[in-house]
């Protein structure tokens, strides 16, 4: 922490920080405010910050008519499965990389880091083709199956953590007659909780906010996730108030998760510098 000397400088800093914070938060306030306006009020000049009257109908309408209830359930369903898959598989692979010596270890580790740099657009079309050949288009398989095969970011995160655990744990468990998978599931996985929490938040955010995957793979409206539902709503030319109600529903869960799991999230970013 550096010391600021001049009090005037400090006032200037507060001012800058507050202006910045308003810039960051205002869109959320505006989203919420607009979502509670009547059709007449949305185009009123000057715009009202606090809607009067408060109109909850927008939420009711899109919840019932455009099936946002269903999109919400779909999103939660996909996200839960992706979280289970990614937490187990990333820790599993990371355990293998961290605990054993084998010939291709270095190569696999290198490839893992390299995959972070290949843009997904290059692999997108062949991947789509694979799922088409499997007859899995218009289903959740393309979205959830890869999460069970470990992702580079998660493996990297777990690998760093497992390496920091004492090696004697493994030795003593072996002497007690535990097999490597047993050691992983019974001893290491529970110990990885802090890293798993960070990865869990990242996976939640990534899966919840994913637009491109559902956009490509899902055709039936009943299968839509929230971001896709919102994009669909946008194409339907509904009024701004309803669109903002949809935006609030799409944003709220991930913001709540973030508020509760801030620490894990911030540490995850700070320690790896990667995004989920």
């Amino acid at each position, binding site marked *: 922490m550096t010391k600021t000397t001049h009090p005037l400088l400090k006032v200037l800093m507060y001012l800058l920080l507050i202006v910045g914070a308003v810039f960051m938060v205002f869109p959320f306030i505006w989203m919420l405010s607009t979502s509670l306006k009547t059709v007449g009020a949305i185009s009123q000049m000057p715009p009202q910050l606090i809607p009067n009257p408060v109109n909850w109908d927008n939420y009711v309408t899109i919840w019932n008519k455009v099936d946002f209830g269903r999109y919400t359930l779909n999103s939660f369903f996909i996200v839960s499965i992706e979280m289970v898959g990614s937490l187990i598989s990333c820790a599993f692979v990371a355990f293998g990389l961290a605990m054993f010596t084998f010939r291709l270890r270095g190569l696999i580790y290198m490839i893992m880091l390299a995959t972070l740099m290949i843009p997904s657009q290059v692999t997108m079309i*062949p991947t789509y083709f694979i799922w088409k050949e499997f007859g899995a288009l218009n289903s959740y398989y393309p979205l959830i199956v890869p999460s069970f095969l470990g992702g580079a970011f998660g493996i990297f995160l777990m690998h760093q953590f497992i390496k920091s655990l004492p090696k004697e744990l493994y030795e003593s468990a072996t002497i007690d007659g535990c097999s490597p998978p047993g050691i992983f599931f019974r001893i290491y996985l529970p110990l990885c909780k802090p890293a798993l929490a960070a990865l869990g938040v990242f996976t939640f955010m990534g899966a919840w906010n994913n637009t491109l995957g559902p956009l490509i793979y899902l055709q039936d409206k009943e299968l839509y996730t929230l971001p896709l539902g919102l994009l669909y709503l*946008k194409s339907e030319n509904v009024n701004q108030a309803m669109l903002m109600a949809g935006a609030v529903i799409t944003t709220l869960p991930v913001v709540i998760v973030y508020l509760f799991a801030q620490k894990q999230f911030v540490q995850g970013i700070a320690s790896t510098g990667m995004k989920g």
Partner: protein
Amino acid sequence: MQKQGYWGYIFTLPFVINVVVFLLFPIVFSTYISFTEWDLFNAPRWIGLDNWVRVLNKHEFWVSIRNVFMFALIFVPIQTIMAFVIAFMLNQAIRAKGLFRLFYFLPVVTPWIAGGVVWVWMFNYQYGVINWVLESIGLDPVKWIDSSNWLMVVSSIAIVQVWKGVGQSMIMILAGMQNVPKEVLEASQIDGANGWKQLTKVVFPMVTPMVYLVMILSTISAFQAFDVFLGLFGSITTGIPERNMVPNLLVYRDAFLLFKMGPASATAWLLFVIILGFTLFQKYFEKKWVHYD
């Protein structure tokens, strides 16, 4: 480390499958497709370099490159400088740090489409709150993302991207700053360095690796921009107007709306080459200003 090597293979097997199926095969296959005419349903037909030539001769490809280039040129410096300034301020003895950090970080977790629709509404020419603010202080309303001037459109989108991304970059730089040892700062203070000297001669050089990383990641994300353009302009049914095109949207449109897999693959590879070029370019200048150890 344990000697029973086969366990290593067993544990890493899921990822090896992942790499072979979803990375190696797609890379080879995508290269092949870029030399063929293919609609995803009938057999691919070899046409040599035609796709590449066609893409490179297409006006919209160059429009998309121009857009994404300017977008990166505006977005990356603004985001990096803002992230550094905010991180520096939040690293001072200041109240409500946690709250500020929370606010700055909120857009990072927000789904792009939700962020996109609210910004479109705020940018609205007639009813948008931004123009209302401008008018109430006596300025003329601005056609932000509806402007006929593409540079205006791209700049407006860059601002939205900064809103979305600056929190993440800020956290990374802040983490770097918190690793600057107190002793070093105290020593510099005893030697008579004032706040500005400390910032430029001690703090900045020590966080250059993080600033560099932020720049690289911002550049990559700028060239890969997809969600921000989709969120602001996109619609499932009508796609996106050509003048707001970026390469990634071009790939998406060619592949999944027009079923032209060949040009889409060639475009994706060209984009990859451009990103790689820029990353190497930044890497080349790295040793001039980034200090390690």
